């Protein structure tokens, strides 16, 4: 009775995620570095390890921490299971971020891929939210204070901020209710939304005829199976092997049980938010939490819709000029951001110098302008010296934003010690 077409349904279904034949350029590893596929694999690994963790974990103020220590000390391979889940989650943030950077710099977000860029940004947001909601679950000092800091950040959003922060926490403080709703977001709603958005993301890649290629005149096609499938399996197996080895060597952190009476010194947000925390040390929260992130998000969404861009789809950095622009922008952002950080730490004390002005101006608007003006000057300079076109200026702007965030993340997480002082 078995119809040939319905035999091996699972294998066939999986193979049908790909087209039967693909352009030979698009399966070169350096075209995509396999980042999208790695992210999808990590999602699956997180799903499996997460499902297993659910059998042990108790989402309550009393039970959460103890269930984690029970898992680590009593359950066979429990520590390894938690480590796997933890490191997969952290790696997923890194890989998704690199994936976003890759599609941007290889000019793969224009025309028919516009909409997929938006879905990509949405998935990036969901990835970060998943990681962040998971961060609270161990209910240790690290988790408790990171989430206290992050939810209080929300309260600086004008008008709706306080209400929103209370809504997210379910109270004035991080409490058991917060733990329960974060647990449900982490293990229910967010993964479900991600499965849905990922399906659309993959489908849109197929609709755009696969990944971008540098030279569309060459049309040499190869069979997906085995040419691409073989590569995917090699990458997937190596990654799983590396992850297991890594998880055997390095344990996921677990500090003392959460104690609302005592903030550890220093208390830090999760590392991917450290750029924000660093920004907050230099800027009024109204700017650091609200104005800057809203502007950056709006800008990212708007990129593929900018008029008058001539994108060399699939060409890294758009052109030779684009490469130079990227390098110089990165150098500029590293130097200038470091200068500003050191400057506001030791020299610029606007709040003391101009004590009569409102803090929104002295610690908000002034630092903002101090950053914007030289950057604008730099843009004019690259336009003139390197003959950068509109696209190159756009690339420069994105590079500066990314590099500045990376510098702030590094400074915040590595160079700040006790009392959040530099080099303490």
């Amino acid at each position, binding site marked *: 009775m078995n119809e040939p077409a319905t035999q091996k349904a699972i294998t066939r279904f999986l193979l049908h995620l790909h087209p039967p034949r693909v352009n030979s350029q698009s399966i070169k590893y350096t075209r995509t570095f396999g980042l999208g596929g790695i992210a999808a694999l990590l999602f699956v690994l997180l799903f499996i390890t997460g499902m297993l963790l659910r059998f042990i974990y108790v989402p309550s103020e009393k039970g959460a921490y103890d269930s984690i220590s029970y898992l680590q000390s009593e359950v066979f391979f429990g520590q390894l299971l938690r480590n796997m889940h933890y490191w997969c989650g952290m790696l997923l943030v890194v890989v998704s971020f690199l994936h976003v950077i890759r599609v941007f710099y290889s000019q793969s977000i224009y025309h028919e891929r516009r909409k997929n860029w938006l879905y990509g940004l949405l998935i990036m947001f969901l990835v970060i939210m998943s990681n962040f909601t998971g961060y609270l679950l161990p209910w240790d000092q690290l988790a408790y204070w990171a989430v206290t800091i992050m*939810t209080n950040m929300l309260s600086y959003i004008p008008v709706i901020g306080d209400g929103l922060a209370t*809504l997210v926490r379910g109270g004035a403080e991080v409490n058991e209710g917060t733990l329960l709703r974060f647990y449900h977001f982490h293990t229910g709603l967010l993964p479900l939304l991600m499965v849905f958005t990922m399906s659309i993301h993959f489908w849109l890649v197929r609709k755009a005829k696969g990944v971008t290629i540098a030279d569309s005149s060459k049309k040499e096609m190869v069979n997906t199976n085995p040419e691409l499938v073989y590569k995917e399996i090699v990458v997937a197996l190596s990654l799983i092997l590396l992850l297991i080895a890594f998880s055997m060597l390095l344990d996921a952190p677990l500090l003392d049980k959460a104690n*609302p*009476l005592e*903030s550890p*010194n220093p208390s830090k947000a999760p590392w991917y938010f450290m750029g924000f925390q660093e920004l907050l040390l230099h800027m009024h*929260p109204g700017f650091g939490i609200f104005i800057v992130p809203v502007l950056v998000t709006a800008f990212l969404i708007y990129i593929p819709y900018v008029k008058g861009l001539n994108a060399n789809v699939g060409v890294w950095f758009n052109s030779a000029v684009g490469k130079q622009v990227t390098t110089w922008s990165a150098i500029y952002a590293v130097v200038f951001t470091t200068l500003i950080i050191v400057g506001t730490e030791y020299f610029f004390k606007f709040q003391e110098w101009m004590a009569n002005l409102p803090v929104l101006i002295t610690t908000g608007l002034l630092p903002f302008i101090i950053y914007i003006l030289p950057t604008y000057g730099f843009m004019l300079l690259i336009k003139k010296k390197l003959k950068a076109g509109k696209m190159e200026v756009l690339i420069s702007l994105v590079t500066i934003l990314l590099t500045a965030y990376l510098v702030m993340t590094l400074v915040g997480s590595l160079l700040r010690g006790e009392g959040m002082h530099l080099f303490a």
Partner: protein
Amino acid sequence: MSFIEKITRRSFIKKAIITAISLELAYVFINLLKKGSETNVPANLFEAGDIELFEKGKIYPFSAQRFYLSRLQDGGFMAISTKCTHLGCTVQFKNKDNKFMCPCHASAFSVNGEVLAPPATRALDLFPITIVNDKILVDTNNPQRRDKHNKSQITYA
């Protein structure tokens, strides 16, 4: 405007229905999340002790209740919340420097709770104090927001 011309009766009704259902779901969802965050909390009076117990010009920690009771030189009382106004970490009083320090982002507050160093932008919250029969009662459920410190915030016996 072209996008207005594109709306037909059929698409208008369709969008209206979708919007109405989404709004309804969002409303239900938000109200679910709101549960447990009632805004009008009844006062929870904590008895800190007799007036005579506290020396003038000293500051006493009540860390489990999350405030410092400060008796000023002129005999007035203030119950200063330990919740940093910046991002909610727990501040600690440093006797050596005579100020409150936040371990998270290095905000500093004076003995009166006023901001000495950013990133915090407003003074530490105060808990309302009532003095009954020479006993000090602190309402630990209703922190009072304030931007700056002033005399009217001090409670006298």
